[in-house]
Each structure stands twice: as C-alpha cells, then as structure tokens.
C-alpha cells in the first residue's frame, strides 16, 4: 500500500509535506470564512481549488488515497455549491483534519486513518442534482492551466456579455529571440491592436526567462486573425488560441508540469519551462535552520574576535598614545564593527518569521474550543506582521494554545451569563504581538469574567496548596501567582479542553527556559490579559556583568530595572529575609554568595544592589562589584558541563575569560524559597578566570 518506490521522489515528497501544510491551513481558514459569510461563492471556489491542488500534488507523489479523497471532495464541493454552507464548513474542517492525519501517516509510514465518516459526508452532499456535472467539468478545466484571477475572469465575463469572444492565447517565444520581455511587449501590443487584453502571464517583471506568454483577451476578431497577429518573425515562433473555457493544451500542461513538480496552488498548470508564476517560487530558498544557526554562530565568534581586537587596541593606545597608526586602527575597527552589526542583524533577520505563522492557527483552535464549551467566541488577531525568531515561535506555540484555550473555557462566560452581565453574548479573544525595546510581547486578552483573587485563594486553601493563614496574608499579586502552581485550576471541573495536564506552571516553565516572563492583568467582570514577554533572539544578549566573591557573572540587561548602591549597614532583616529600604519601597534581597565568614574575609561595606524585574515582582540581587555592560554571544552549556539550572549559558569575553550567565528565574526561585542567606543548599557554579567552568555535581 505504501507508495514509496524510489528515492529521488523523497525530496519531492518532503516538499509536498511542507506545501500541503499551507494548503490545509488555507482550507481551515476558508472553512471558517465560509462559516462567517455562508453566501460567499468565492470561498467555496477557493476551497475547491485547494482540493484540486491537493489532489494533483498528492497524485504526483503517489499518495493515492489522499488524492482520491481530495478528488471526491472536489467533486462534492462543485455539486454541493448550492448545498447548505454549514455542511460545507463541517466537511471542509473534517477534511482538513483527516488530510492532516493522512499526511502524518504517510510520513511515518503507519496505517492510514479511517475515511469512512468523511466519505459518508461526501455522499450525503453528493446526492444533489446530477445536471450540474457537465458544467463542473468546464469550470475545473478553466481553473486549470494558467490561473486567471477572479477579477480577470469577471472582466472576461463582462466582455463576453458585450458580445466579444474570449480567447486564451499562448504565444511561444522564437528561438532566435533572446529578449523575452521585449517579445512579450510586442505580442501584447499586437494583441492590443485587435483585442482588449484582459490579463497576461507572466507579467513584465517576471518574464526574464519566459518561453511562452499567456494572454486572456476579449475581441470581436476571428480566432485565425488573433493567431496570425501573434506570430511575429524572429520573436514569436507560433501561437495557440483557445476559446476561453476549454483549454486542451493547458490541461496537457498539467499532466506534464504536475507530474514533475508538485507546485502549490495556482501554479500547477504552468509547464515547468515557463518562468511565469513559478519564478516567484524560485526566489525563495529553503535552507535548513542548522545552516543558519551555523552562520549565526560564526557571527558570534566574530563578535568575540571584535572585542579581542578592541582590548588589544586599548592596550596599544595605552602604550603608544602618540602613534599615528592608532587613528588608522580605530577607523578600521569602527568600520569593522559597523559591518559586523549589519551582518549580525541580517543573519538574525533570516531566522525571523512573522508571528502570523503561529497566529493563523488560532481561528480554528478558537472555533473548536468555543464549540466544545458551548460558548460564542470570536477572535481578533493583531500585529501578525511582527517578526520573531523561528525557534522562539515554535517554543511558544504550545503555551499560547494553552492560554487561549484557558481563556475560552475558564475566562469567557457562556452566552446567557454574558447577557445577564450586560455583555455581548459573543466573547472576544484578542491576540496581539508587538516589539518593545528588545523584547517580543505577545498578549492574549479576553473579555470574560476575569480572575477573582478571593476565589483563587479559597480554592488554593481547599486544595491544600496553601494554609488558611497564608491565604489571609497573601497580597493580590501573590494570589495570582497561585495559578502557576502545578495542578492548580479554578475551573469547577476539569474539562477535556483545558484539563490536558498542561497547566500554567508548564507555560511558565517554557517561558523561563526562553528567558521570558508572563504577566497577568485582570479585572473581575471585564476580562484577563496574559502578557508574554520574550527576548527577540536567544543568541546574543546585552548583558550586565558583575562580580560576586570575585567570580564573574552576567544577567540579561533588560531584566535590570535599576542599580542601587548601598552599605551593608543599610540592610535590614525582616523574618528570614534581608530587605533594603529603597526610596519608599521595601525591596526583598537575594544573596547568592556563600555565607559570609566575617573572620576570614573583611566586611565589605560598599555593595551594589541590582533591582530586578521578574514579572510582577521586584527583587534586589546583592553583588560585590559591577564589571560593565557587554554584548554577549551565548554559548549553550550542556548538562555535562554544568549540572545546575542556576546558570543557563556561558559566554567568552574578548580577553578569553569565561562568564556564566545566570538563569535569573531559577536563581531567584531557589534562593527565595530557602531563605535569602543560603549557605549549603545552593551556590552558583563558578567560572574560573580564563578556564572552562568548574563542574559542580
């Protein structure tokens, strides 16, 4: 049954798997669009085109079952055009699911999913009138070959109504002619003298390598006149002219083109040798991420090299302050660093993809979730053009899905409740993405009932997460923190949708791993906003370097809200926590060093406090000395090098020193949980100057 025969097809199949994802996405999108505007015939046509492309591509790859199913659906859609739009929506959505399952099965070479259910749906739809069948044939063949847009087809229809004949003219470039663009212009001018040119393929810009030109014209001239007008010695060797609607040659092209190369929508009909719309695809290069990562890594090395140069330069300046060579060096270095910055930015840009790639899944998720919760929800998507690192995008897909599902199942009330509360019975979930400073912000906003801290505490007490006494003392902010506790849910009952074992604790963990944070903004009765903040890229960070007990560490600069200077005598102790009175606020402190042994080490009076922003909380990190800001190229540390989650990665400075980058979230979690002044429970691993980090078991 498995149609894998030869290896050369493997690459093509990969391409098919990739492109078909896009087709399925548009299938989903169209189905939802149809649900909103059931009268829109163009959407149905679009769905049918998708099916048609899937059918052709799948057949070219030897995926017979998928191709057949797509074919059945394509037929059903043509016949069922008059049918109930709701049924079509259902059919399309189920089709998208089953296709997706089939693709997985093909890929993993497992058993194909059962298609009886969808076939039944098809046959139900197909019981419509048979008379439309012959008509459909014409439509599909019109859709094949060169694709004319809806607008173009409309103009053709209008011209036809005026009594003109519509022809599809194919003009073939003469071998003698090396200037296809000029040739295209000549045919176009020739045609324009006897006809109205409605559309032309390829357009002028992409005709550089074209071997044939397609025109859609409306004319009162005869077919033979059109034909002879197109033939231009040394430019156009011959031309073909078909009354629009029956393009025999074009469907022959499909067989040729389709079998060789499964090009996605609207392109399948173009023979491979034409530059036409395919040339658009030629400008896109598919590159594996590891190759880009490799380049990025090298850029990172260059940045290290740059800072090596800079340090040597400083040394040089110190020794030979008057040397005229100095100015030339510094010019060269300024130039180098500018180019390096550009290089870094360009490479990063390669990895960036618009967040839309992620967002566009959500209409379907919202649709399904709302349906299963019997709620009415609409989704608003904004900021989909925001660029974000691909790896980041992949990482937040799961958390985002979870939050959106949560928002629908817990946040948004059912229609009746909403009406009673004087709200629109249809709830709204809004996704937004934007850049702020060096961060990507993703907001998930709902207009549901919000989170009630009182209920939250009550629930936590009931589930023995906290004691009643704790609950009394808890601030509202701390109460919101409860929702991140493992296994905690405020829903009355665990639903299938949001009770999948992935809690907000997991969401937060994922974000922590990506050096991001999550914030909640909620107003009871009005809704909740989850705000995910993530660094734009994970490869290079602006870092603040400091020393604790003569060891060098760094933290991302954007986590630092402010740096305060203090004396040891300014610190006070409240319970087990050290605090600092900073202006009119009491700041809890975290000390990550070993317990200070006053006998061995002279007490240092001057210290620095880094005020850190961690989501809702503010904390002060006590450090001995500041070392400066630097752009650090992050080198991942594997588990064999450092067996702790307290440092997330390391970097190499220009002078060869190794600096460890603290995993702030983990550090703070560890050091606040067990009291501030910890001695034995945890201490940071150290990077010995100039050497590899010490391994700490």
């Amino acid at each position: 049954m498995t149609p894998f025969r030869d290896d050369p097809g493997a690459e093509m199949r990969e391409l098919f798997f990739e492109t078909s994802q896009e087709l399925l996405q548009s299938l989903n999108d169209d189905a939802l669009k149809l649900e909103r505007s059931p009268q829109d015939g163009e959407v149905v046509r679009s769905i049918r085109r998708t099916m048609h492309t899937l059918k052709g591509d799948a057949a070219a790859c030897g995926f017979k079952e998928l191709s057949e199913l797509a074919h059945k659906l394509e037929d059903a859609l043509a016949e069922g055009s008059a049918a109930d739009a709701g049924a079509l929506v259902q059919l399309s959505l189920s089709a998208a699911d089953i296709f997706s399952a089939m693709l997985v099965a093909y890929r993993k070479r497992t058993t194909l999913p059962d298609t009886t259910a969808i076939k039944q749906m098809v046959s139900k739809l197909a019981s419509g009138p048979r008379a439309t069948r012959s008509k459909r044939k014409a439509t599909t063949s019109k859709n094949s070959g060169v694709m004319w847009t809806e607008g173009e087809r409309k103009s053709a229809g209008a011209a036809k109504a005026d009594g003109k004949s519509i022809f599809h003219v194919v003009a073939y470039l003469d071998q003698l002619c090396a200037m296809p663009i000029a040739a295209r212009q000549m045919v176009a001018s020739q045609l324009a003298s006897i006809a109205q040119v409605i559309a032309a393929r390829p357009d002028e810009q992409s005709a550089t390598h074209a071997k044939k030109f397609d025109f859609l014209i409306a004319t009162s001239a005869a077919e033979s006149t059109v034909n002879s007008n197109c033939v231009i010695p040394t430019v156009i060797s011959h031309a073909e002219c078909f009354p629009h609607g029956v393009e025999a040659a074009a469907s022959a092209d499909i067989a040729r083109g389709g079998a060789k190369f499964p090009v996605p929508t609207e392109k399948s009909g173009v023979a491979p040798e034409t530059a036409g719309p395919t040339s658009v695809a030629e400008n896109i290069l598919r590159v594996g991420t590891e190759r880009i990562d490799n380049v990025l890594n090298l850029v990172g090395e260059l940045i290290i090299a740059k800072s090596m140069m800079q340090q040597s330069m400083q040394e040089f300046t110190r020794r030979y302050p008057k040397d005229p060579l100095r100015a030339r060096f510094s010019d060269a270095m300024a130039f180098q660093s500018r180019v390096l910055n550009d290089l870094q930015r360009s490479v990063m840009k390669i990895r960036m993809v618009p967040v839309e790639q992620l967002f566009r899944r959500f209409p379907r998720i919202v649709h399904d979730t709302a349906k299963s919760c019997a709620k009415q929800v609409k989704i608003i998507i904004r900021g989909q053009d925001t660029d974000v690192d691909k790896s980041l995008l992949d990482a937040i897909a799961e958390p985002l899905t979870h939050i959106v599902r949560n928002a629908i199942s817990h946040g948004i009330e059912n229609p009746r409740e909403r009406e009673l509360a004087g709200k629109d019975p249809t709830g709204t979930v809004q996704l937004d993405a934007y850049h702020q400073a060096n961060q990507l912000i993703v907001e998930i906003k709902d207009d549901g009932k919000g989170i009630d801290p009182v209920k939250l505490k009550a629930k936590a007490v009931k589930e023995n997460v906290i004691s009643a006494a704790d609950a009394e003392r808890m601030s509202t902010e701390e109460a919101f923190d409860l929702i991140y506790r493992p296994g905690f849910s405020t829903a009355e009952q665990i639903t299938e949708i949001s009770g999948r074992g992935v809690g907000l604790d997991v969401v937060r963990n994922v974000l922590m791993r990506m050096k991001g944070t999550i914030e909640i903004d909620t107003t009871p009765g009005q809704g909740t906003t989850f705000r995910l903040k993530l660094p734009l890229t994970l490869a290079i960070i602006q870092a603040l370097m400091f020393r604790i007990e003569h060891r060098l560490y760094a933290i991302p600069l954007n986590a630092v809200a402010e740096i305060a200077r203090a004396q040891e005598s300014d610190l006070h102790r409240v319970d087990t926590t050290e605090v600092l009175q900073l202006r009119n606020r009491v700041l809890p402190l975290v000390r990550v060093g070993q317990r200070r042994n006053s006998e061995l080490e002279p007490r240092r009076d001057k210290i620095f406090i880094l005020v850190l922003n961690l989501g809702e909380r503010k904390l002060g990190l006590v450090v001995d000395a500041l070392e400066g800001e630097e752009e650090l190229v992050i080198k991942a540390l594997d588990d064999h090098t450092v067996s702790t989650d307290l440092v997330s990665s390391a970097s190499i400075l220009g002078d060869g020193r190794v600096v460890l980058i603290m995993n702030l979230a983990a550090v703070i979690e560890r050091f606040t949980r067990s009291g501030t002044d910890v001695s034995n429970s945890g201490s940071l691993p150290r990077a010995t100057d100039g050497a590899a980090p010490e391994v700490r078991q």
Partner: protein
Amino acid sequence: MEQFSPIKRSKDGQAVRYLIVDDSVFARKNLARIIESFGGEIAGEAGDGMTAITEYERCKPDIALMDITMPQMEGIEAAEKIVQQNPDARIVMVSSVGYQENIVAALQRGARHFVQKPVKPEVLYEVIKYVLGEDGVVAATAGAGA
C-alpha cells in the same frame, strides 16, 4: 556576405529607403552593408537622437533603424518624437540584450519592432519584411542574378 532576395516597395517597386541611427560609425557601416544586401537604399544616417529627428523629417525613410544609447538624445525619446510627428513611421530598435527594458519602453512609445545586437542579417531581413507588411514585396527573380 550572404545575398538576399531584394525587398522592394510594393507601391512603386523602388528600393526601400532606410535611416540608420547609431552613435558608432562602425555600427552604421555594418548596418548599411546588411541593408544594401537586402537591396535597400541608405537615405540618411545620424549619430545622435537630435540629428535623427531632423534627418527623419528631411529624408522621410520607409524604415528607421534606431540604436538605444546615444549622446544628446536617447533612441527611445527620438523614436517617440518621430512617431508623434509621423504616426506611420516604422522604427526598429537595435540594441543589445542588456537594454531589454528600454526596448520595452520604446515599443510602448510607438517603435514597431526590435533586433538584437550584434545584428544577424537573416533576422533583420525577417524583421524588415514583417514591419513593411503589405508595403514591401520580395522581388523573387532579381535575387538570383545579383
């Protein structure tokens, strides 16, 4: 050089008259030789766009062969001006592949055809026949004797 059957004007059977516009003397010479092999007559020559316009008005040729890049006025502009004054002017652009966009522009402004540099006589011959259309006739017998 290969000989072609002469192309004559169908109205009077006279030689077809050409205006050759190119800033390179060598290119003009070369074109002139090719045209003479078609039995054509060089009615005028010009080395820039400005001269081309005045020369066109003076000699009123049947066909003008026009280079694209020239001093003073480029071929496109000259072609456009000539066509404005003489809607029936038959202008054939002569240029290398690199100037394809300019050819397109010239075609949009009224040039009738184009040939690629270096000009191949057999290509130009076909182009001339096509551009003349019914106004040109191939003298079948005369060619053999020449």
